[in-house]
């Protein structure tokens, strides 16, 4: 039911029961907010969205006040503007306001609000609480002094992710947001997904950056520096340079990387191709031997960390294949190192992706051998953009170059695995071919291309019907795995992404993302797939070559040695080790 309401002496339409804020937004009237989050229950903490309502003594928060009848409001009356301005001034009075030293300088919501309210005087000067910076996590830095307690991270972590790694601590002006007992993030329930860094308006939560080791490697003549980037990065990097989202600038990025001193630029999707091949083989094997089903994906490091912390028994269902970027890293430090005759110690691999949790993944001991890491550094999309800015390169003026061979080329299957459901689609194609020796028709699987948090596909493998499920919600994934642990499920494969919609919405992606931008990123990757001539991993000639020259077959002794997680194999009591 629609109701007429009067806003700023103009009548607009509102749906009964919706909040004033939502009605205002629909009608193009903008009201500033710091704590509002679409689709979540309003918390009413920041009070920035207050409006003046006739008949009410106090100002009314538009984000939580439901429209139930005709009301008359003013969104920008002097009283409202004064209140909003005072709130910003109060926030600034306890903010370190060292903007010049802040990672969010230039794209900080507090900064821009302060600018738009024309604040030019420090009206309230007083005590500022000193709080420790938390650098304990491998991926996320917490700077509580900069926190304005908008609660976005807390609510997202609790309500969407179901992790609750951080919450309010203390009371009144001593309040802070942090993990339990104000310990470090590293020993909290945090799984490094980094969604909070996307939401934080002020730079209190951001990714941990270490450019120095990369710069040193780039300028060490002995070191052969390789960049590998994935599809999620390619889908969004254009946004960082003011180019519209979904525009392909990867060829420009290739030459930019080369200009900065990278010796080779490869595509992590090649690793995905390997991953898809190996995991498909494993699914077929497990179906044949009828054990360890379903196979659960391990490509999302945040999901792996979640299971390690909360449900370690489920680890035995996990695929034993290492994550895609590690596979490529491993190949680079073995096969490729031999091929170009450089010691693996002198190869430095930088993985560029959309993920903050991968920063944690690369430090794990099982992803290095004899002290040599498979991946030496992991950069997020945001960080790479910052890294390019350090080198003062105008990306749009570069000349397009292709990425290097042999690992710069992948099937489009490897690309779409950056979207939730994409990995399942890719594995369905390969596993179907492996099992039935013919191609799945059509290769485009629409059932896996929607925005639902659970996507299901029924597929015939080894002459039986099996289900494949893609989930991008931890709570549902946990439930699904728990049910699968009890046996009796008909599921062959479960793909889990912690970030809603998958890696394209990863914690390291450009800020200020919305549904439209996500759609554009998705379209970019699906377009590649729709246009591609090689859409399946088994048609990728480079993959074929590496198997014939080096690895024999998927699941061979060599593959197991290089690609498999030994500890999961042990848990599954594999015969081959």
């Amino acid at each position, binding site marked *: 039911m629609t109701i007429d309401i009067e806003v700023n002496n103009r009548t607009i339409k509102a749906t009964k029961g919706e909040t004033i804020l939502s009605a205002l937004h629909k009608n193009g009237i903008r009201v500033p907010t710091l704590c509002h989050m679409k689709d979540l229950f*309003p*918390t*009413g*903490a*920041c*009070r920035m969205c*207050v409006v003046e309502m006739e008949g009410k003594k*106090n*100002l009314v*928060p538009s*984000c*939580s*006040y*439901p429209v139930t009848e005709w009301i008359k409001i003013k969104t920008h009356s002097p*009283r409202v503007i*004064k*209140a909003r301005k*005072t*709130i910003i001034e*109060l*926030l600034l*009075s*306890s903010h370190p306001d060292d903007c010049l030293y802040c990672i969010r300088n230039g794209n900080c919501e507090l900064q821009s609000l302060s600018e738009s309210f024309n604040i030019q005087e420090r*009206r*309230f000067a*007083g*005590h500022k609480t000193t709080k420790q910076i938390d650098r304990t996590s491998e991926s996320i830095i917490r700077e509580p002094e900069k926190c*304005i*307690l908008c*609660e976005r991270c807390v609510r997202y972590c609790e309500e969407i992710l179901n992790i609750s790694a951080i*919450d*309010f601590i*203390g*009371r*009144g*002006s*001593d*309040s802070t947001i942090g993990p339990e007992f104000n310990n470090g993030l590293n020993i909290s329930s945090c799984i490094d997904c980094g969604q909070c860094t996307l939401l934080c308006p002020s730079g209190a939560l951001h990714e941990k950056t270490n450019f120095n080791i990369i710069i040193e490697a780039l300028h060490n003549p002995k070191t052969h520096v390789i960049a590998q980037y994935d599809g999620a990065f390619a889908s969004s990097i254009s946004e960082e340079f003011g180019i519209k989202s979904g525009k392909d600038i990867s060829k420009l990025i290739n030459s930019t990387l080369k200009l900065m001193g990278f010796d080779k630029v490869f595509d992590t999707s090649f690793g995905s191709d390997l991953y898809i091949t190996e995991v498909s083989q494993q699914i077929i094997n497990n179906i044949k031997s009828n054990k360890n089903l379903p196979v659960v994906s391990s490509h999302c490091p945040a999901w792996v960390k979640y299971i390690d912390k909360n449900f370690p028994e489920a680890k035995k269902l996990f695929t034993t294949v290492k994550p895609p970027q590690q596979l490529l890293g491993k190949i680079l430090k073995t096969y490729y190192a031999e091929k170009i005759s450089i010691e693996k110690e002198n190869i430095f691999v930088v993985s560029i992706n959309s993920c903050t949790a991968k920063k944690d993944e690369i430090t794990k001991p099982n992803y290095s051998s004899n002290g040599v890491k498979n991946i030496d550094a992991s950069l997020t999309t945001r960080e790479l953009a910052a890294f390019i800015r350090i080198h003062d390169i105008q990306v749009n003026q570069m000349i397009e170059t292709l990425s290097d061979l042999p690992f710069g080329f992948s099937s489009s299957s490897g690309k779409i695995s950056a979207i939730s459901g994409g990995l399942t689609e890719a594995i369905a194609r390969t596993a179907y071919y492996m099992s039935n020796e013919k191609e799945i028709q059509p290769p485009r699987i629409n059932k896996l291309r929607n925005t639902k948090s659970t996507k299901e596909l029924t597929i015939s493998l080894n002459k039986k019907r099996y289900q494949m499920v893609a989930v991008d919600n931890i709570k549902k994934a946990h439930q699904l795995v728990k049910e699968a642990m009890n046996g009796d499920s008909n599921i062959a494969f479960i793909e889990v992404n912690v970030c809603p919609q998958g890696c394209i919405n990863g914690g390291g992606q450009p800020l200020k993302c919305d549904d439209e931008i996500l759609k554009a990123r998705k379209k970019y990757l699906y377009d590649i797939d729709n246009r591609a001539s090689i859409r399946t991993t088994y048609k990728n000639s480079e993959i074929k070559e590496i198997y014939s020259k080096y690895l024999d077959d998927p699941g061979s002794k060599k593959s197991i040695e290089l690609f498999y997680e030994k500890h999961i194999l042990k848990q599954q009591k594999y015969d081959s080790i």
Partner: protein
Amino acid sequence: MNESAINLVEELLINASFEQRSELKQYIKLCRRDTVEKPVIFVGGGTCGRAAGATDTIAAIKQYLDENNFDAELVETGCIGLCSAEPIMDIQLPGRNRISYKNITKEKVTNILDAAINSTIYSKNVLWQFENDFSTQWEGIPFIQEVPFFKNQKRIVLSHCGKTDPLNIDEYLALGGFKSFSNSILNKTPAQIRDNVLKSGLRGRGGGGFPTAKKWNITANTTAEHKYLICNADESDPGAFMDRAIIEGDPFMLLEGIAITAYATGITQAYIYIRSPYILAKKRLQKAINICKEQGLLGDNILNSGFNLSIKIVIGAGAFVCGEETALIASIEGKRGIPRPKPPYPAERGLFNMPTVINNVETLSNIPSIINKGDEWFKEIGTDKSSGTKVFSLTGKVNNIGLIEVPMGTTIREIIYNIAGGIPDNKKFKAVQIGGPSGSCIPEELIDTQIDYESLEEIDAIMGSGGFIVVDENTCMVDLAKFFIGFLKDASCGKCIPCREGTRRMKEILDEITKKPLNGNHHSLSRFKGVMQLEQLGEIIEETSLCGLGKTAPKPVLSALKYFREEFEEHIYERKCRANVCKGLRSYEINIENCTGCTICLSKCPENAIMGTPRSPHFIIEDKCIGCGICYDVCKFNAITIK
């Protein structure tokens, strides 16, 4: 006693045929203390009594009774209200009126009991005697209702407090307890009860003053799987102890109120949210709940009416903000106690997202009397729009500190000068702070204001939950405002920005103007600017804060500014505190005539601000002096004076 209680429940509440039975009638008379068979000793054992030494008094009495083979009954009651006279000890000898003594610490017990053993009374420390139709009075001792402290009170909620054994259900039943409840569930429909309460005009006593029955109607008319009742006993205002005294003194009346409310709103699960420091109240309440369960007054199918009710006590961790209903709900749900925006109101969507009635202890304790005596009786008390009585805790600079219950419409002057007995040492009255930390300071010119919701709103004050703090001329209003805003700053939950950051800045501004001024123009300017901001900031906090606590947080400061502006200005411009409270603004000088050069002040001064040689007059170095006043306190020759 237990078996007789079951009989009593049956006879009194179900059969009503007891009138023919003389032995029961006699038992009821005993329970009502109309007659006593042996001497009965009552000791006020509320938290206030215990703090004044009632525990020791009780031990001393027990010892005396043992040693002297004195056969007497010892009863521990709640607080009768006159806390400044605690420990209060009453004695009722067979055939004679009950008589009360004040300040009976353990040493004084012997005197009284020596007299009692000889069936006479000790003549000192006497407060009053109780009126009784069945016994003879003592000559020359005033009746309780004639004492000024009680004369102007109208006790409904507190009617049993301090008089009866709070945990003796027989006494409560004999005094007419649970009659309203049994009558309600057996003979009335929930709608009838809601209608009675609506007509009575009862409004929420927790501070808001929202009509109680309207709240009930919203919940009763909402369809939901479950509905809950919460009794808010999270009383955390500094200087407020109404709820504590009610629970300690008469837990059954509260439980009866809860039970009637639950029945009237179709609720079967009630919670009492009580703050953890209220240990005694919690203990007595739990015992009272257990007794009611044993007697079949709580639980399933109460008195065969088909009505079920379970009451659960939830202990709050002691956060001030948990008195706010949405924060309280979050706390019961096991979450961090922080408020959420309203609407939706708890009456529609509250505890576990179900419709929830939240009422304060005092509100609920009023219900049994309203049902028993009728809405018209209740409507008669008080003013037109504010009916009934209100309990206040009288504290501060008054002679009679304690708990009072007055009809709405009583003036502030009546309370201070009649009930509270005026201000000690004939000091001048300055202000009264009504309504807890977020209430207002009411100055002398408004002392004839009536206490009811409308009159208080007119002068920009609030009823609050019932704090009543009187201050005299020795109190600095800036300091008082600073105290309250400091309290609220610490108690703020930290969720919304205006309250979290604003109260902190307000406190800092007040700190600034009460501090020893630094030399230089910049500091003077910042002091001046601070006060300009104080008002603006206060208004923004009022306008934009999330919950009721934030919205009223600047009230004490704003009202002090409104009524005592000249005192603020003195602090800023003249750097003077007229009450000599603000240490930073005090300065001292040494009177050369009186100073003997004893060097005590010199050695005690923490800032080395005093110089001088032994046996010759000393001097204060003003720049170093921080105004702490230690020298003033230690000087034996009155040589140090305040400038």
